[in-house]
């Protein structure tokens, strides 16, 4: 198992008795807005800690793991993508810098942009990109890091349906090809049914349904 949650409670937002997320699988999380999906991802990334209960990552309580090292293995993409100043290239490289990894060549960067379905030159100023393009840039930045676990919070909310499918297909293939764990919050059930190994429904801060697909 990648994650195990036991008696986890966070404010009035989330209350989960027992919940597991399998390793090297695609887990999709669905639920209405305000149901606690983002909070769950933030807990897994240890950006917040539970008020009660424990979260285990690969069998270890995440409160016992160095938070920086954990976040370099379990990387999260927020719903509003973070775009830093500078070019598209700067934005890709800053992820490597944050994670203290070596720089890579331009052709590797271009290949990652292609995988994230972002057809823009590396020199483009990142702040001039549209909302959907920023989302794909932030996604490319995470794929470049090749983390063990990828947490995506509605990665395609600003994309049209056609692009959305292509982006998700690409990231799912990427995770499967590298046997990584992919956990993503998606807004439509059809996406979950099409791509997920496990679909989890969250409602009112609790897990109400879990199905293997």
């Amino acid at each position: 198992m990648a994650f195990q949650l036991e008696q986890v409670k966070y404010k009035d937002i989330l209350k989960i008795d027992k919940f597991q997320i399998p390793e090297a699988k695609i887990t999709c999380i669905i639920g209405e807005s305000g149901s606690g999906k983002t909070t769950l991802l933030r807990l897994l990334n240890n950006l917040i800690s539970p008020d009660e209960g424990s979260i285990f990552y690969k069998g270890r309580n995440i409160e016992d793991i160095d938070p920086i090292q954990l976040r370099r293995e379990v990387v999260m993409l927020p719903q509003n993508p973070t775009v830093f100043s500078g070019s598209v290239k700067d934005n890709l490289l800053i992820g490597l810098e944050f994670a203290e990894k070596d720089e890579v060549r331009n052709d590797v960067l271009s290949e990652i942009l292609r995988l994230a379905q972002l057809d823009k030159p590396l020199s483009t100023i990142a702040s001039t990109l549209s909302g959907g393009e920023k989302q794909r840039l932030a996604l490319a930045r995470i794929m470049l890091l090749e983390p063990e676990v990828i947490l995506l919070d509605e990665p395609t909310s600003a994309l049209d349906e056609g692009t959305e499918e292509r982006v998700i297909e690409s990231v799912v293939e990427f995770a499967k090809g590298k046997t990584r764990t992919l956990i993503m919050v998606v807004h439509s059930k059809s996406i979950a049914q099409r791509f997920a190994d496990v679909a989890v429904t969250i409602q009112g801060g609790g897990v109400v349904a879990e199905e293997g697909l």
Partner: protein
Amino acid sequence: MMMGVVDIGFFNLLAGYALILVVLVMLRQRNIKKETELLIAVVRMTIQLVLVGYILDYILGSQRMWMTLAAVAIMEVFAVQNIYQRVKIDMTPRFRSIVACSMAFGTIITMIFFFFVLLSVKPWYSPRYVIPLSGMLIGNSMTGITLGAERLLRGFHDKKELIEGALMLGATPERASREIINESFTAAILPTINSMVGMGIVFLPGMMSGQILSGVPAVTAIKYQMAIMFAILASVAFTVFILVVWGSKTFFNDRAQLVLYG
């Protein structure tokens, strides 16, 4: 050659208050409701300066080390209080104590270097030098810290998403807040750097003007002015640097999570 300065007679000074009366009439004419504030400011200034004048005369006459040190300590305390009042964003108790510590450390380090190495006055606690020059260092550092603290606090609130975005990718808190720290530091020291540029051309600095008024040769006065400017820049830079580096740590807990208050 030193020349004595012309003293201002009591009645001459009273004539100075006539200028205030003119301003009061102007305010009344324009119906600008600031008369009370102006009057309070004039009265406060008069009382404060008269008191300080007598106290300074006493300290300068006594040449006692503990009196000089006490005067510097009082200036530090007032400066810190002033920062607490001027920063309009809520500060946590930990942040407040960092403000006080950075103010003390930064200014004292600079004072030691300034009085022992740069000026090497004897005795080192000579109140004639230490009190006015320390006052300048403390006053400028106070303005620097106020600017730096406001910028830092605002930066953490306004750029919360960028900082968390960096943390999510595995950045250390130091790396995630680097831009905000650098921006705050720059904003705080920029006014000092800018004031150096105009000095001597756009305006004559207060200390230099004062020395020239009291008969010190202009060349000596500019040497003092340069020395104090180096020290002011260093003092502002040290205090603000300690503040932004330590202060930024108060926004993270031991799990490297962003903690915002208020």
